[in-house]
């Protein structure tokens, strides 16, 4: 089934990007997780009518994409496919908020349009930050960072097991769906009834697999605790990475840089 396979390819693609060796990839995963969080909080803390203030923040994704050697077009494609919920809800703003806030010649721009564009910008910034985090760090390293940042162990272990077995189970699922579609002559789409029994079957297999994994764990001395060793080293460069970006975010948040820039340029030419 194409959706399953393409989803797997997608995850695999990000994984391969994460396996590169660039100055960004070399940063400690904790540094990147913390910076991404600071970035997102900064972005959403802007007022909803602020457009120009958000623009300098594009520096973060642009620099990381460039230095991290990530393919911009691929990431953009993923962005566009990403959940449209924000846009569906945002599109109401122009209809509901018609107060004219800005007049450019004869054209008046309503608050609704401005906040809608702001939602779009936020969406681009926050979602690209998440994608960039994964594709410069890798899922497992993010999990490891979370463990070190005191996220409960059970949860990070869950994340790693989940990620490990997505590939195995999704493949199983796609085999089952393919077997069904070869036999389903009449209908291209699965009825809820067929779906339920297919998913039930998949579930039974999943439970059996979990049991076998448990057996494999036990036979290697598993006692309920999964121990992780992967040395992480938070060096000067990592500290600098976090500090420099955070300082930039604070600066961009505290003063409207494009405004200042425009003033300076106009002032000089005036």
């Amino acid at each position: 089934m194409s959706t399953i396979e393409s989803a797997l390819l997608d995850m695999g693609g990000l994984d391969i990007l994460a396996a590169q060796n660039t100055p960004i990839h070399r940063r400690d995963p904790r540094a990147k997780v913390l910076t991404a969080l600071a970035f997102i909080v900064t972005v959403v803390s802007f007022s909803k009518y602020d457009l120009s203030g958000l623009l300098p923040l594009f520096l973060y994704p642009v620099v990381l994409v460039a230095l991290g050697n990530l393919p911009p077009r691929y990431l953009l494609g993923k962005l566009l496919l990403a959940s449209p919920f924000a846009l569906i809800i945002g599109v109401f703003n122009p209809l509901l908020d018609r107060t004219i806030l800005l007049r450019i010649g004869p054209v008046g721009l309503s608050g609704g349009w401005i906040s809608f564009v702001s939602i779009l910008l936020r969406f681009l910034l926050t979602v690209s930050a998440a994608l960039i985090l994964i594709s410069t760090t890798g899922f497992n390293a993010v999990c490891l960072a979370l463990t070190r940042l005191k996220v409960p162990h059970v949860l990070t272990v869950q994340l790693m097991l989940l990620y490990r077995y997505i590939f195995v189970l999704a493949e199983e699922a796609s085999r089952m769906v393919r077997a069904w579609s070869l036999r389903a002559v009449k209908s291209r789409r699965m009825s809820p009834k067929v779906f339920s029994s297919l998913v039930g079957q998949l579930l039974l297999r999943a439970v059996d697999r979990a049991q076998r994994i448990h057996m494999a764990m036990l036979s290697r001395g598993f006692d309920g605790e999964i121990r992780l060793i992967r040395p992480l080293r938070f060096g000067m460069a990592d500290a600098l990475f976090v500090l420099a970006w955070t300082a930039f975010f604070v600066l961009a948040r505290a003063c409207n840089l494009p405004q200042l820039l425009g003033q300076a340029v106009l002032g000089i030419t005036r």
Partner: protein
Amino acid sequence: MTHHIVEVQDLNYTYPGGVHALQGVSFRIVHGESVGVVGANGAGKSTLLRHLNGYLMPVQGSVRIGDCLVAKPTLRDVRRAVGMVFQDPDDQLFMPTVYEDVAFGPLNLGLPAAEVEARVMQALDTVGAAHLRDRPPHRLSGGEKRAVAIATVLSMAPDLLVLDEPTSNLDPKARRQFIELLRTFRHTKIIATHDLDMILDLCERTIVLHGGRVTADGPTLQIFNDPELLMRSHLEKPLRMQACPVCGKPT
């Protein structure tokens, strides 16, 4: 210290569903032996192996590994002594990277970090997979997965290797490499399989199971040359011992 490393006595096991999977199985295995366990589907091979590391507890009869009787209090020692390799390496390789998977066992043993590192690298070297150390298991080929699965067990330094259908899903070349790898191990080995040719290569002794009972136990060649026994147990002579299909001459 007994000379026997495995001693199974009158082992019976009935699954919750009521299937009598094992009915009075007994045998002994001494240090350094390689023993094949063969039998039709559902003969009870996997059930038998699951008793060897205490995943299943004997309902009746007993299993002894070295000096330990398999029971709740000895489980830790038993599991340390018995290295189990499962049929589907995807079940065995559950950690994010090969390195972490091989380190899983030693870490559970509570070894210091340096010792863990040494054991992991040694185990990976033994199976020729050191270059795979940072790869995620789902990106390995079937043969590589199998090799790494063995390494996960070797890093525990077991006295006994127990393998359930280790060559299923391998292509001929990977299978051959895998057999050669197993041949280099000096461990005591118990191998349950339908691949009788592999048994012929690796095991001087074979135990035949049928319907949860031992129907034969003896030198491999002798068993494979007993057509009546093989037929009773729903088995066939290994291909290599059959007449050549083209010219009809025995190979």
